[in-house]
Protein backbone atom coordinates (compact mmCIF):
# COMPACT_ATOMS: atom_id res chain seq x y z
CA UNK A 1 0.00 0.00 0.00
CA UNK A 2 1.23 3.47 -0.85
CA UNK A 3 1.09 5.43 2.39
CA UNK A 4 1.64 8.79 0.77
CA UNK A 5 -1.26 8.47 -1.69
CA UNK A 6 -3.42 7.02 1.04
CA UNK A 7 -2.75 9.92 3.37
CA UNK A 8 -3.45 12.44 0.60
CA UNK A 9 -6.83 10.82 0.02
CA UNK A 10 -7.62 10.77 3.73
CA UNK A 11 -6.45 14.37 3.95
CA UNK A 12 -8.72 15.47 1.13
CA UNK A 13 -11.70 13.89 2.85
CA UNK A 14 -10.93 15.51 6.18
CA UNK A 15 -9.99 18.73 4.47
CA UNK A 16 -13.24 19.06 2.57
CA UNK A 17 -15.12 18.68 5.85
CA UNK A 18 -12.90 21.32 7.50
CA UNK A 19 -13.48 23.59 4.52
CA UNK A 20 -17.26 23.38 4.87
CA UNK A 21 -17.06 24.34 8.53
CA UNK A 22 -14.37 26.98 7.92
CA UNK A 23 -16.69 28.75 5.48
CA UNK A 24 -19.08 29.50 8.31
CA UNK A 25 -16.32 31.12 10.37
CA UNK A 26 -14.99 33.12 7.48
CA UNK A 27 -18.32 34.39 6.15
CA UNK A 28 -19.38 35.66 9.56
CA UNK A 29 -15.97 37.20 10.17
CA UNK A 30 -16.08 38.85 6.75
CA UNK A 31 -19.26 40.71 7.66
CA UNK A 32 -19.06 41.26 11.42
CA UNK A 33 -15.37 40.79 12.23
CA UNK A 34 -16.64 38.39 14.84
CA UNK A 35 -15.28 34.91 15.46
CA UNK A 36 -18.37 32.84 16.04
CA UNK A 37 -16.90 30.26 18.37
CA UNK A 38 -20.28 28.58 18.64
CA UNK A 39 -20.02 27.47 15.03
CA UNK A 40 -18.34 24.17 15.97
CA UNK A 41 -21.35 23.42 18.18
CA UNK A 42 -23.70 24.09 15.29
CA UNK A 43 -21.79 21.38 13.41
CA UNK A 44 -22.21 19.06 16.39
CA UNK A 45 -25.95 19.77 16.45
CA UNK A 46 -26.10 18.84 12.76
CA UNK A 47 -24.64 15.44 13.54
CA UNK A 48 -26.79 14.91 16.63
CA UNK A 49 -30.06 15.92 15.01
CA UNK A 50 -29.38 13.71 12.00
CA UNK A 51 -28.49 10.75 14.24
CA UNK A 52 -31.63 11.26 16.30
CA UNK A 53 -33.80 11.24 13.19
CA UNK A 54 -31.97 8.23 11.79
CA UNK A 55 -32.30 6.39 15.07
CA UNK A 56 -36.03 6.96 15.07
CA UNK A 57 -36.34 5.63 11.52
CA UNK A 58 -34.06 2.65 12.04
CA UNK A 59 -36.83 0.12 12.70
CA UNK A 60 -38.73 0.99 9.53
CA UNK A 61 -38.09 -0.75 6.24
CA UNK A 62 -36.96 2.38 4.43
CA UNK A 63 -33.74 1.95 2.43
CA UNK A 64 -30.60 2.99 4.33
CA UNK A 65 -29.64 5.83 2.04
CA UNK A 66 -33.12 7.33 2.38
CA UNK A 67 -32.85 7.25 6.17
CA UNK A 68 -29.54 9.09 5.99
CA UNK A 69 -31.03 11.66 3.62
CA UNK A 70 -33.96 12.20 5.95
CA UNK A 71 -31.52 12.76 8.79
CA UNK A 72 -29.83 15.42 6.69
CA UNK A 73 -33.16 16.89 5.64
CA UNK A 74 -34.01 17.59 9.28
CA UNK A 75 -30.49 18.51 10.41
CA UNK A 76 -30.02 21.22 7.77
CA UNK A 77 -33.09 23.34 8.59
CA UNK A 78 -32.55 22.60 12.28
CA UNK A 79 -29.05 24.06 12.15
CA UNK A 80 -30.20 26.97 10.00
CA UNK A 81 -32.73 27.86 12.70
CA UNK A 82 -30.04 27.47 15.34
CA UNK A 83 -27.58 29.72 13.44
CA UNK A 84 -30.28 32.34 12.98
CA UNK A 85 -31.24 32.22 16.65
CA UNK A 86 -27.64 32.47 17.87
CA UNK A 87 -27.12 35.69 15.96
CA UNK A 88 -30.45 37.20 17.00
CA UNK A 89 -30.23 36.31 20.66
CA UNK A 90 -26.52 36.49 21.43
CA UNK A 91 -24.72 38.69 18.92
CA UNK A 92 -27.17 41.30 17.65
CA UNK A 93 -27.64 43.03 21.02
CA UNK A 94 -23.84 43.37 21.18
CA UNK A 95 -23.39 44.75 17.67
CA UNK A 96 -22.08 48.07 18.99
CA UNK A 97 -20.36 46.69 22.08
CA UNK A 98 -16.59 46.29 22.30
CA UNK A 99 -15.19 43.36 20.37
CA UNK A 100 -14.19 41.52 23.54
CA UNK A 101 -17.80 41.36 24.76
CA UNK A 102 -18.87 39.60 21.58
CA UNK A 103 -15.95 37.19 21.80
CA UNK A 104 -16.74 36.22 25.37
CA UNK A 105 -20.38 35.81 24.40
CA UNK A 106 -19.38 33.52 21.55
CA UNK A 107 -17.50 31.27 23.95
CA UNK A 108 -20.48 31.38 26.29
CA UNK A 109 -22.89 30.34 23.55
CA UNK A 110 -20.58 27.49 22.68
CA UNK A 111 -20.60 26.20 26.26
CA UNK A 112 -24.38 26.57 26.53
CA UNK A 113 -24.91 24.61 23.31
CA UNK A 114 -22.61 21.80 24.47
CA UNK A 115 -24.55 21.50 27.69
CA UNK A 116 -27.89 21.58 25.93
CA UNK A 117 -26.71 18.78 23.67
CA UNK A 118 -25.47 16.81 26.67
CA UNK A 119 -28.85 17.19 28.38
CA UNK A 120 -30.74 16.06 25.29
CA UNK A 121 -28.49 13.27 24.04
CA UNK A 122 -26.41 12.33 27.04
CA UNK A 123 -22.67 12.02 27.53
CA UNK A 124 -22.14 8.77 25.69
CA UNK A 125 -20.91 8.40 22.14
CA UNK A 126 -23.70 7.83 19.67
CA UNK A 127 -22.83 5.54 16.80
CA UNK A 128 -23.74 6.16 13.22
CA UNK A 129 -25.91 3.16 12.19
CA UNK A 130 -24.42 0.99 9.43
CA UNK A 131 -26.89 2.15 6.81
CA UNK A 132 -24.45 2.72 3.99
CA UNK A 133 -22.81 -0.45 2.65
CA UNK A 134 -19.08 0.18 2.33
CA UNK A 135 -17.53 -0.28 -1.11
CA UNK A 136 -13.76 0.01 -1.51
CA UNK A 137 -11.95 0.99 -4.67
CA UNK A 138 -8.24 0.70 -5.39
CA UNK A 139 -6.50 3.68 -6.98
CA UNK A 140 -2.77 4.32 -7.33
CA UNK A 141 -2.00 1.71 -4.75
CA UNK A 142 -4.36 3.26 -2.17
CA UNK A 143 -7.90 2.56 -1.06
CA UNK A 144 -10.84 4.93 -1.27
CA UNK A 145 -14.33 4.12 -0.03
CA UNK A 146 -17.64 5.14 -1.54
CA UNK A 147 -18.26 7.28 1.54
CA UNK A 148 -14.98 9.15 1.06
CA UNK A 149 -15.87 9.80 -2.58
CA UNK A 150 -19.32 10.98 -1.55
CA UNK A 151 -17.86 13.38 1.05
CA UNK A 152 -15.40 14.91 -1.41
CA UNK A 153 -17.92 15.24 -4.24
CA UNK A 154 -20.70 16.65 -2.07
CA UNK A 155 -18.30 19.17 -0.46
CA UNK A 156 -17.07 20.30 -3.85
CA UNK A 157 -20.64 20.76 -5.09
CA UNK A 158 -21.61 22.76 -2.00
CA UNK A 159 -18.52 24.96 -2.25
CA UNK A 160 -19.08 25.55 -5.96
CA UNK A 161 -22.69 26.46 -5.17
CA UNK A 162 -21.62 28.89 -2.47
CA UNK A 163 -19.03 30.51 -4.74
CA UNK A 164 -21.67 30.88 -7.43
CA UNK A 165 -24.07 32.45 -4.92
CA UNK A 166 -21.51 34.89 -3.58
CA UNK A 167 -19.93 35.94 -6.88
CA UNK A 168 -22.78 35.68 -9.38
CA UNK A 169 -26.05 36.59 -7.71
CA UNK A 170 -27.66 39.78 -6.48
CA UNK A 171 -27.74 38.39 -2.94
CA UNK A 172 -24.03 37.60 -3.17
CA UNK A 173 -23.24 41.13 -4.31
CA UNK A 174 -25.28 42.47 -1.41
CA UNK A 175 -23.34 40.22 0.98
CA UNK A 176 -20.00 41.44 -0.34
CA UNK A 177 -21.17 45.07 -0.27
CA UNK A 178 -22.35 44.72 3.33
CA UNK A 179 -19.04 43.13 4.33
CA UNK A 180 -17.16 46.00 2.78
CA UNK A 181 -19.23 49.04 3.82
CA UNK A 182 -22.46 48.32 5.70
CA UNK A 183 -23.47 52.00 5.86
CA UNK A 184 -23.21 52.47 2.14
CA UNK A 185 -24.92 49.13 1.54
CA UNK A 186 -27.85 50.57 3.48
CA UNK A 187 -28.01 53.47 1.04
CA UNK A 188 -28.47 50.92 -1.75
CA UNK A 189 -31.54 49.58 0.01
CA UNK A 190 -29.77 46.59 1.51
CA UNK A 191 -30.91 45.73 5.02
CA UNK A 192 -27.67 44.76 6.76
CA UNK A 193 -29.53 42.79 9.44
CA UNK A 194 -31.16 40.60 6.81
CA UNK A 195 -27.83 39.97 5.13
CA UNK A 196 -26.21 39.12 8.46
CA UNK A 197 -29.00 36.65 9.26
CA UNK A 198 -28.64 35.04 5.83
CA UNK A 199 -24.91 34.72 6.37
CA UNK A 200 -25.40 32.87 9.65
CA UNK A 201 -28.06 30.65 8.08
CA UNK A 202 -25.88 29.71 5.11
CA UNK A 203 -22.89 28.94 7.32
CA UNK A 204 -25.08 26.80 9.57
CA UNK A 205 -26.47 24.83 6.63
CA UNK A 206 -22.94 23.95 5.51
CA UNK A 207 -22.05 23.07 9.10
CA UNK A 208 -25.02 20.70 9.32
CA UNK A 209 -23.83 18.79 6.27
CA UNK A 210 -20.28 18.73 7.62
CA UNK A 211 -21.49 17.43 10.97
CA UNK A 212 -23.30 14.52 9.34
CA UNK A 213 -20.20 13.80 7.24
CA UNK A 214 -17.98 13.65 10.32
CA UNK A 215 -20.40 11.34 12.10
CA UNK A 216 -20.62 9.08 9.08
CA UNK A 217 -16.86 9.09 8.52
CA UNK A 218 -15.85 8.27 12.07
CA UNK A 219 -19.02 6.32 12.78
CA UNK A 220 -19.61 8.38 15.93
CA UNK A 221 -21.03 11.59 17.30
CA UNK A 222 -20.70 13.13 20.74
CA UNK A 223 -21.86 16.30 22.46
CA UNK A 224 -18.26 17.48 22.69
CA UNK A 225 -17.26 16.79 19.07
CA UNK A 226 -17.85 20.38 17.94
CA UNK A 227 -15.06 21.77 20.07
CA UNK A 228 -12.04 20.25 18.34
CA UNK A 229 -13.70 20.28 14.94
CA UNK A 230 -14.56 23.95 15.34
CA UNK A 231 -11.06 24.83 16.44
CA UNK A 232 -9.57 23.02 13.44
CA UNK A 233 -11.98 24.64 11.02
CA UNK A 234 -11.17 28.02 12.56
CA UNK A 235 -7.49 27.20 12.01
CA UNK A 236 -8.29 26.39 8.38
CA UNK A 237 -10.07 29.73 8.00
CA UNK A 238 -7.10 31.59 9.48
CA UNK A 239 -4.68 29.62 7.31
CA UNK A 240 -6.61 30.63 4.17
CA UNK A 241 -7.04 34.22 5.33
CA UNK A 242 -10.02 34.86 7.58
CA UNK A 243 -12.81 36.67 5.79
CA UNK A 244 -11.81 35.20 2.45
CA UNK A 245 -14.17 32.54 1.09
CA UNK A 246 -11.77 30.91 -1.37
CA UNK A 247 -9.20 31.03 1.42
CA UNK A 248 -11.41 28.97 3.73
CA UNK A 249 -11.74 26.31 1.05
CA UNK A 250 -8.02 26.24 0.37
CA UNK A 251 -7.15 26.38 4.08
CA UNK A 252 -9.52 23.50 4.85
CA UNK A 253 -8.07 21.22 2.19
CA UNK A 254 -4.49 22.11 3.10
CA UNK A 255 -5.05 21.55 6.80
CA UNK A 256 -6.65 18.18 6.13
CA UNK A 257 -3.66 17.10 4.04
CA UNK A 258 -1.10 18.45 6.52
CA UNK A 259 -2.84 16.61 9.31
CA UNK A 260 -3.04 13.32 7.44
CA UNK A 261 0.50 13.41 6.21
CA UNK A 262 1.64 14.42 9.67
CA UNK A 263 -0.25 11.53 11.25
CA UNK A 264 1.13 9.14 8.65
CA UNK A 265 4.72 10.11 9.21
CA UNK A 266 4.82 11.35 12.79
CA UNK A 267 6.30 8.03 13.91
CA UNK A 268 9.21 8.43 11.51
CA UNK A 269 9.57 12.13 12.25
CA UNK A 270 9.86 11.57 15.98
CA UNK A 271 11.94 8.36 15.69
CA UNK A 272 9.06 6.28 16.88
CA UNK A 273 8.44 8.40 19.95
CA UNK A 274 5.01 9.78 18.97
CA UNK A 275 2.13 7.83 17.46
CA UNK A 276 -0.56 8.90 14.97
CA UNK A 277 -2.89 9.82 17.84
CA UNK A 278 -0.83 13.02 17.97
CA UNK A 279 -2.55 13.98 14.70
CA UNK A 280 -4.36 16.85 16.40
CA UNK A 281 -1.22 18.74 17.29
CA UNK A 282 -0.58 19.60 13.66
CA UNK A 283 -3.60 21.88 13.39
CA UNK A 284 -2.43 23.93 16.33
CA UNK A 285 1.13 23.93 15.12
CA UNK A 286 -0.17 25.36 11.84
CA UNK A 287 -2.33 27.89 13.67
CA UNK A 288 0.61 29.19 15.67
CA UNK A 289 2.90 29.36 12.64
CA UNK A 290 0.31 31.28 10.61
CA UNK A 291 -0.46 33.70 13.43
CA UNK A 292 3.21 34.40 13.97
CA UNK A 293 4.49 34.60 10.41
CA UNK A 294 1.51 35.37 8.17
CA UNK A 295 -1.48 36.52 10.25
CA UNK A 296 -3.40 37.54 7.15
CA UNK A 297 -3.26 33.93 5.91
CA UNK A 298 -2.61 32.68 2.41
CA UNK A 299 -5.26 34.64 0.52
CA UNK A 300 -6.23 37.30 3.05
CA UNK A 301 -5.45 40.96 2.65
CA UNK A 302 -3.50 42.88 5.18
CA UNK A 303 -5.81 44.05 7.92
CA UNK A 304 -5.23 47.73 7.16
CA UNK A 305 -6.77 47.29 3.71
CA UNK A 306 -10.00 46.09 5.19
CA UNK A 307 -10.79 49.37 6.89
Amino acid at each position, binding site marked *: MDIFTQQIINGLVLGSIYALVALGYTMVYGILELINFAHGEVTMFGAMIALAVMGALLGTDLPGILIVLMGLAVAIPGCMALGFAIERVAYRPLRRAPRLAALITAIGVSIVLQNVAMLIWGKQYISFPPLLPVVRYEILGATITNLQILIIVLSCLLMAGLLWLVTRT*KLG*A*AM*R*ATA*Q*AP*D*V*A*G*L*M*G*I*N*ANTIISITFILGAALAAVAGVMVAAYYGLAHYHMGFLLGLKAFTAAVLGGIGNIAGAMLGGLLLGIIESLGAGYIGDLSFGFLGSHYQDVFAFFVLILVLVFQPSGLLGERVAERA
Partner: protein
Amino acid sequence: MSMLEARGLEVSYGQIKAVKGIDLNVNPGELVCLIGANGAGKTTTLKSLAGMLAPSAGDIHFEGKSISGRASHDLVRRGIALVPEGRGIFGRLTVEENLRLGAYARKDTTGIRQDMDRAYDLFPRLAERRRQSAGTLSGGEQQMLAIGRALLSRPRLLLLDEPSMGLAPILVQKIFEIIRRISAEGVTLLLVEQNAKLALEVSHRGYVLESGRVTLADEARALLANPRVRQAYLGG
Protein backbone atom coordinates in the same frame (compact mmCIF):
# COMPACT_ATOMS: atom_id res chain seq x y z
CA MET B 1 -45.93 71.85 -0.72
CA SER B 2 -42.28 71.06 0.01
CA MET B 3 -40.91 67.75 -1.08
CA LEU B 4 -38.52 67.64 1.87
CA GLU B 5 -38.98 69.56 5.07
CA ALA B 6 -36.82 69.47 8.20
CA ARG B 7 -37.98 71.30 11.33
CA GLY B 8 -35.76 71.90 14.36
CA LEU B 9 -33.46 69.10 13.26
CA GLU B 10 -30.83 68.14 15.81
CA VAL B 11 -28.23 65.42 15.42
CA SER B 12 -25.66 64.36 18.00
CA TYR B 13 -22.64 62.09 18.17
CA GLY B 14 -22.82 60.89 21.75
CA GLN B 15 -22.60 64.03 23.86
CA ILE B 16 -21.53 66.25 20.97
CA LYS B 17 -24.33 68.05 19.18
CA ALA B 18 -23.24 68.53 15.54
CA VAL B 19 -26.53 69.85 14.13
CA LYS B 20 -28.30 72.24 16.50
CA GLY B 21 -31.84 72.71 15.31
CA ILE B 22 -32.03 73.56 11.65
CA ASP B 23 -35.06 74.29 9.47
CA LEU B 24 -34.72 73.48 5.82
CA ASN B 25 -37.00 72.71 2.92
CA VAL B 26 -36.65 71.62 -0.67
CA ASN B 27 -39.45 72.02 -3.21
CA PRO B 28 -40.12 69.55 -6.02
CA GLY B 29 -37.80 70.14 -8.99
CA GLU B 30 -35.53 72.49 -7.07
CA LEU B 31 -31.76 72.41 -6.85
CA VAL B 32 -30.79 73.62 -3.39
CA CYS B 33 -27.28 73.86 -2.00
CA LEU B 34 -25.94 73.77 1.51
CA ILE B 35 -22.62 75.53 2.01
CA GLY B 36 -20.44 76.00 5.04
CA ALA B 37 -16.96 75.62 6.43
CA ASN B 38 -15.33 72.35 7.50
CA GLY B 39 -17.12 70.87 10.47
CA ALA B 40 -20.22 73.05 10.04
CA GLY B 41 -22.45 69.97 10.04
CA LYS B 42 -23.24 69.55 6.34
CA THR B 43 -22.46 65.85 6.15
CA THR B 44 -24.25 65.20 9.41
CA THR B 45 -27.35 66.95 8.05
CA LEU B 46 -27.35 64.92 4.82
CA LYS B 47 -26.76 61.67 6.68
CA SER B 48 -29.74 62.27 8.90
CA LEU B 49 -31.93 63.20 5.91
CA ALA B 50 -30.87 59.93 4.23
CA GLY B 51 -31.52 57.83 7.33
CA MET B 52 -27.90 57.02 8.17
CA LEU B 53 -28.11 58.91 11.46
CA ALA B 54 -31.21 59.20 13.63
CA PRO B 55 -32.03 62.79 14.65
CA SER B 56 -32.02 63.44 18.40
CA ALA B 57 -34.76 66.06 18.01
CA GLY B 58 -36.90 67.64 15.33
CA ASP B 59 -38.88 66.25 12.45
CA ILE B 60 -38.22 65.35 8.83
CA HIS B 61 -41.06 65.07 6.33
CA PHE B 62 -40.69 63.71 2.82
CA GLU B 63 -43.59 64.04 0.38
CA GLY B 64 -45.89 64.76 3.29
CA LYS B 65 -44.91 61.78 5.47
CA SER B 66 -42.70 61.80 8.53
CA ILE B 67 -39.48 59.93 7.89
CA SER B 68 -37.47 60.80 11.00
CA GLY B 69 -35.77 57.74 12.41
CA ARG B 70 -36.39 55.64 9.28
CA ALA B 71 -33.39 53.59 8.14
CA SER B 72 -31.65 54.37 4.88
CA HIS B 73 -32.58 51.02 3.31
CA ASP B 74 -36.19 52.03 3.77
CA LEU B 75 -35.77 55.60 2.50
CA VAL B 76 -34.24 54.46 -0.81
CA ARG B 77 -37.49 52.70 -1.52
CA ARG B 78 -39.36 55.93 -0.86
CA GLY B 79 -37.23 57.82 -3.38
CA ILE B 80 -34.32 59.36 -1.46
CA ALA B 81 -30.76 58.60 -2.56
CA LEU B 82 -27.48 59.89 -1.11
CA VAL B 83 -24.10 60.05 -2.80
CA PRO B 84 -22.01 59.97 0.37
CA GLU B 85 -18.97 62.05 1.16
CA GLY B 86 -15.89 60.18 -0.06
CA ARG B 87 -18.07 58.40 -2.66
CA GLY B 88 -18.59 55.11 -0.81
CA ILE B 89 -17.62 52.91 -3.72
CA PHE B 90 -17.49 49.17 -3.10
CA GLY B 91 -13.87 48.87 -4.20
CA ARG B 92 -13.76 45.09 -4.35
CA LEU B 93 -16.88 44.85 -6.49
CA THR B 94 -16.84 45.53 -10.21
CA VAL B 95 -18.13 48.75 -11.73
CA GLU B 96 -21.14 46.89 -13.07
CA GLU B 97 -21.89 45.29 -9.69
CA ASN B 98 -21.72 48.71 -8.02
CA LEU B 99 -24.20 50.13 -10.50
CA ARG B 100 -26.53 47.16 -10.19
CA LEU B 101 -26.58 47.52 -6.42
CA GLY B 102 -27.94 51.02 -6.95
CA ALA B 103 -31.05 49.30 -8.28
CA TYR B 104 -31.11 46.75 -5.44
CA ALA B 105 -34.52 47.85 -4.18
CA ARG B 106 -36.15 47.77 -7.62
CA LYS B 107 -37.91 44.85 -9.25
CA ASP B 108 -38.59 46.21 -12.79
CA THR B 109 -35.94 44.28 -14.71
CA THR B 110 -36.46 46.08 -18.03
CA GLY B 111 -36.44 49.48 -16.36
CA ILE B 112 -33.18 48.62 -14.62
CA ARG B 113 -31.68 47.46 -17.92
CA GLN B 114 -32.62 50.80 -19.52
CA ASP B 115 -31.28 52.80 -16.59
CA MET B 116 -28.00 50.86 -16.70
CA ASP B 117 -27.67 51.81 -20.36
CA ARG B 118 -28.52 55.41 -19.50
CA ALA B 119 -25.82 55.47 -16.82
CA TYR B 120 -23.28 54.10 -19.30
CA ASP B 121 -24.39 56.76 -21.82
CA LEU B 122 -23.97 59.47 -19.23
CA PHE B 123 -20.56 58.12 -18.16
CA PRO B 124 -18.90 56.34 -21.11
CA ARG B 125 -15.75 55.81 -19.04
CA LEU B 126 -17.70 53.49 -16.78
CA ALA B 127 -18.88 51.45 -19.75
CA GLU B 128 -15.27 50.82 -20.78
CA ARG B 129 -14.45 49.68 -17.26
CA ARG B 130 -17.58 47.77 -16.36
CA ARG B 131 -15.78 44.49 -15.53
CA GLN B 132 -12.96 46.18 -13.63
CA SER B 133 -12.99 46.27 -9.85
CA ALA B 134 -14.22 49.69 -8.79
CA GLY B 135 -11.28 50.23 -6.44
CA THR B 136 -9.01 50.61 -9.46
CA LEU B 137 -10.94 53.62 -10.83
CA SER B 138 -9.56 57.14 -10.59
CA GLY B 139 -11.15 59.59 -8.18
CA GLY B 140 -13.19 61.23 -10.92
CA GLU B 141 -14.38 57.91 -12.26
CA GLN B 142 -15.36 56.81 -8.77
CA GLN B 143 -17.41 59.97 -8.32
CA MET B 144 -19.18 59.29 -11.60
CA LEU B 145 -19.81 55.74 -10.50
CA ALA B 146 -21.23 56.96 -7.18
CA ILE B 147 -23.58 59.37 -8.96
CA GLY B 148 -24.56 56.80 -11.58
CA ARG B 149 -25.22 54.24 -8.87
CA ALA B 150 -27.43 56.62 -6.90
CA LEU B 151 -29.43 57.42 -10.05
CA LEU B 152 -30.10 53.71 -10.56
CA SER B 153 -32.47 53.78 -7.61
CA ARG B 154 -34.53 56.30 -9.66
CA PRO B 155 -34.58 58.80 -6.79
CA ARG B 156 -37.02 61.67 -6.69
CA LEU B 157 -34.68 63.42 -4.25
CA LEU B 158 -30.93 63.11 -4.72
CA LEU B 159 -28.58 64.24 -1.94
CA LEU B 160 -24.99 64.90 -3.02
CA ASP B 161 -22.20 65.33 -0.46
CA GLU B 162 -19.24 67.20 -1.93
CA PRO B 163 -19.23 65.59 -5.35
CA SER B 164 -16.32 67.79 -6.51
CA MET B 165 -14.07 66.96 -3.57
CA GLY B 166 -10.52 66.14 -4.58
CA LEU B 167 -11.11 66.44 -8.31
CA ALA B 168 -9.08 68.34 -10.91
CA PRO B 169 -10.75 71.57 -12.16
CA ILE B 170 -11.71 70.08 -15.50
CA LEU B 171 -13.48 67.21 -13.74
CA VAL B 172 -15.17 69.60 -11.34
CA GLN B 173 -16.66 71.36 -14.38
CA LYS B 174 -17.80 68.03 -15.75
CA ILE B 175 -19.42 66.98 -12.47
CA PHE B 176 -21.34 70.29 -12.27
CA GLU B 177 -22.47 69.84 -15.86
CA ILE B 178 -23.85 66.45 -14.87
CA ILE B 179 -25.59 67.92 -11.82
CA ARG B 180 -27.26 70.47 -14.08
CA ARG B 181 -28.37 67.69 -16.39
CA ILE B 182 -29.80 65.56 -13.61
CA SER B 183 -31.69 68.59 -12.34
CA ALA B 184 -32.98 69.37 -15.86
CA GLU B 185 -34.32 65.81 -16.05
CA GLY B 186 -36.60 66.62 -13.12
CA VAL B 187 -34.75 65.10 -10.16
CA THR B 188 -34.89 67.28 -7.06
CA LEU B 189 -31.42 67.91 -5.66
CA LEU B 190 -29.86 68.93 -2.37
CA LEU B 191 -26.19 69.63 -2.89
CA VAL B 192 -23.48 70.04 -0.26
CA GLU B 193 -20.35 71.73 -1.55
CA GLN B 194 -17.08 73.28 -0.45
CA ASN B 195 -16.92 74.96 -3.82
CA ALA B 196 -19.55 77.53 -2.87
CA LYS B 197 -19.26 79.62 -6.03
CA LEU B 198 -19.97 76.78 -8.46
CA ALA B 199 -22.65 75.40 -6.16
CA LEU B 200 -24.51 78.70 -5.93
CA GLU B 201 -24.23 79.22 -9.67
CA VAL B 202 -26.10 76.01 -10.47
CA SER B 203 -28.57 76.21 -7.58
CA HIS B 204 -31.94 77.90 -7.23
CA ARG B 205 -31.60 78.47 -3.51
CA GLY B 206 -28.96 78.04 -0.86
CA TYR B 207 -28.47 77.64 2.87
CA VAL B 208 -25.38 78.71 4.78
CA LEU B 209 -24.53 76.48 7.72
CA GLU B 210 -22.28 77.61 10.56
CA SER B 211 -21.49 75.44 13.60
CA GLY B 212 -24.62 73.36 13.20
CA ARG B 213 -27.01 76.28 12.59
CA VAL B 214 -28.50 77.84 9.46
CA THR B 215 -27.31 81.44 9.42
CA LEU B 216 -28.52 82.45 6.00
CA ALA B 217 -31.14 81.14 3.59
CA ASP B 218 -31.92 82.83 0.31
CA GLU B 219 -32.10 82.71 -3.47
CA ALA B 220 -28.75 81.50 -4.81
CA ARG B 221 -28.34 84.76 -6.78
CA ALA B 222 -28.84 86.81 -3.65
CA LEU B 223 -26.32 84.74 -1.72
CA LEU B 224 -23.78 85.16 -4.51
CA ALA B 225 -24.17 88.92 -4.14
CA ASN B 226 -24.24 88.92 -0.34
CA PRO B 227 -21.07 90.61 1.01
CA ARG B 228 -20.87 88.30 4.01
CA VAL B 229 -21.09 85.23 1.83
CA ARG B 230 -18.60 86.69 -0.64
CA GLN B 231 -16.14 87.34 2.10
CA ALA B 232 -16.48 84.03 3.96
CA TYR B 233 -17.05 81.55 1.14
CA LEU B 234 -16.27 83.10 -2.22
CA GLY B 235 -12.80 84.43 -1.51
CA GLY B 236 -13.68 88.16 -1.30
